[in-house]
């Protein structure tokens, strides 16, 4: 009888000890368990005619995510970026954004371009999450939706850069040659305004409809009044035909200034020899002097082996970094504090920083930072637009683009003030 009691006691004690041990292990496990990741959603043209842009943008965003995660993530949470394809079509962008918001429960949307932002922004607005977009559409120059942030300079600034350069070269008789697509036509008005501001003369303004097999009549109209320069943007296929026919018509000595849309190997391939003849200049966003460029280029080179970023990559890198530092500054990624955090981390005053670890360590010491990105200073104006330097590029004989000069936002602002 006494032996049975001892056995029962020992069994009970053993069970009690086991229970305490299990409880202790559970507590330790909970303490060591990593925080759940925070999900952000990338939207871009991963297929279709603009897939080279979309995949470049996704690369930049991924580089930022990997960089931030390698330094502890956002507020201790690793970032998980999910990507949906818009095919650069607003009809596809809506379900893509809807999926990210309602199924993936993203904390921010990264990457819609100018032609898809118009349909995605209302969804972001309804979900109370920020949308950090890339694109120059002048329609967003005075966007008042607080969820909207643009990480690339407006077409208005690009128009000023093109006109400023032409003026600096003494090319004051200007012809305009733009594609009929909205993305091209949106440049015409700011270019005309900039030309008038500098008292330059428009001697021709011809619209080019995509998909035609001949533009000879249009080419004759562009050059009818002997312009000193042609300012232009149209797609690669149209460019191939136009430049061919321009050469055939004997106008190949007239310089052209195009937009960053022409800064691609596909454009050089389409246009052929005319691209490398030395008469084509391109205004493109520049990383010159940007504090965030060093880390971005270093990450890019480690990932791809190249230090030349694809179109859009730098802007989306800046977008993810901006959101992450904003969340760090605000202590949360929830709305509306995330908006205040983004502005606090990005805008002056504050210590300028360009790498995530530097910016984050300053924030942890309660210092005010002024995060500068890889493509702009990421200083948002009252409409949440940024301004950046523009490089004027010129293709050399082997098809590589070289910088001719760089135009700072301050210089452009001074030239077009008032």
């Amino acid at each position, binding site marked *: 009888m006494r032996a049975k009691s001892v056995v029962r006691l020992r069994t009970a004690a053993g069970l009690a000890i086991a229970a305490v041990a299990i409880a202790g292990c559970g507590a330790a496990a909970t303490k060591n368990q990593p925080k759940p990741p925070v999900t952000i959603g990338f939207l871009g043209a991963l297929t279709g005619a603009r897939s080279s842009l979309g995949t470049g943008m996704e690369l930049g965003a991924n580089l930022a995510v990997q960089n931030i995660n390698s330094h502890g993530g956002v507020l201790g949470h690793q970032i998980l970026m999910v990507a949906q394809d818009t095919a650069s079509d607003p009809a596809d962008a809506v379900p893509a954004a809807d999926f990210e918001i309602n199924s993936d429960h993203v904390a921010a949307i990264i990457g819609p371009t100018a032609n898809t932002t118009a349909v995605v922004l209302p969804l972001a607005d309804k979900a109370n999450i920020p949308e950090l977009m890339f694109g120059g559409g002048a329609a967003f120059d005075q966007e008042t939706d607080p969820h909207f942030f643009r990480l690339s300079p407006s077409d208005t600034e690009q128009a000023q850069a093109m006109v400023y350069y032409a003026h600096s070269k003494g090319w004051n008789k200007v012809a305009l040659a733009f594609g009929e697509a909205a993305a091209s036509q949106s440049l015409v008005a700011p270019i005309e305004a900039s030309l008038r501001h500098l008292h330059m003369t428009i001697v021709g303004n011809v*619209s080019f409809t995509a998909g035609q097999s001949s*533009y*000879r*009549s*249009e080419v*004759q109209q562009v050059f009818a009044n002997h312009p000193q320069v042609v300012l232009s943007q149209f797609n690669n296929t149209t460019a191939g035909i136009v430049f061919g026919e321009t050469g055939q*018509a004997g106008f190949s000595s007239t310089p052209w200034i195009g937009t960053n849309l022409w800064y691609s190997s596909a454009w050089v*391939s*389409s246009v052929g020899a005319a691209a490398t003849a030395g008469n084509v200049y391109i205004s493109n966003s520049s990383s010159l002097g940007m504090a965030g460029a060093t880390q971005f280029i270093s990450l890019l080179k480690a990932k791809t082996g190249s230090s030349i970023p694809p179109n859009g990559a730098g802007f989306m890198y800046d977008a993810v970094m901006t959101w992450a530092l904003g969340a760090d500054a605000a202590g949360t990624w929830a709305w509306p504090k995330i908006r205040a955090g983004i502005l606090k981390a990005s805008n002056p005053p504050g210590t300028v920083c360009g790498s995530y670890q530097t910016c984050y360590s300053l924030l942890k010491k309660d210092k005010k930072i002024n995060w500068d990105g890889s493509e702009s200073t990421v200083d948002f104006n009252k409409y949440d637009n940024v301004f950046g330097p523009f490089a004027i590029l010129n293709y050399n004989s082997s098809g590589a683009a070289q910088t001719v000069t760089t135009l700072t936002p301050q210089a452009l602002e001074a030239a077009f003030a008032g």
Partner: protein
Amino acid sequence: MNLFAEAVGFGLVTAAVIALAAVGLSLQVSVTNFVNFAYGDFMTFGAYVAYAANAAGLNFFPAVLVGAAGTGLLGVGANLIVFRPLMRRKSRTLVLLICTVGLSFIVQNVIVLIWGTNSVHYTVTIGNALHIGPFLFTPGDLILIGVAFGLLALLHLFLQYTRFGTALRATSNNSDLAQACGIDTGRVINWTWAISGIFCAVAGVGLALETNTLRPALGFNELFVVFGAIILGGIGRIYGAMLGALIIGILTEVSGMFADPAYKGAIAFAVVVLVLLIRPQGLLPSRGRSA
């Protein structure tokens, strides 16, 4: 007046390319009685085969012959493998049309698979423009117009003065009767596909030269202009296709001088619709289909 004359000249060049394509398609339609929606991609295929031969070191003109031969073989192959079996089964025209659409996707994707999506260029250029009277032509334009004229003249002589040409016209008019008269209509149809492929390839090369760029969607984008030319001239009427091509080519360029160039295609087709409202059978009177 100068710009107008130049536009007419540009229109003649455009018309030359459209005429080559339209005549080839019209010939095929007149004999087989259905439209090949893959025709634009056949044009692109011919241009790419010529490009491949040119890039491999062959001189340009022999390369064009290679392209023409290749596209002729493609046409014959499509007939033997796809269309003839269906026609023997008395398949409906709709079935044949859908097959041509499928063939269009296949050919376009084969082109992308082999040559990629980036634009490519021939090693030859068409030169700089010269003033010839009131017109502005490059040496390449003149060669293209000359080649188009020569090929169309050859076709005319072939159709009118050779036994095979007579057999082709007979098959086009009534294939059952032609067969009953001892004409090997199967052979006639094969040769029609081959000749159509040759015209198609030369048109494709001409188009690639004129647009300074060769890309996978080149011919497909031109297809509806070609359709417009053969409808305007009268479906299945080869001489009508030539006339239709001339009208559309010139209208397209001239309208750009008076209206916003963005609408020049629309204006040209508006005129086509107007003509068809007045004369639905097309511009040329009916004298059998391959006339």
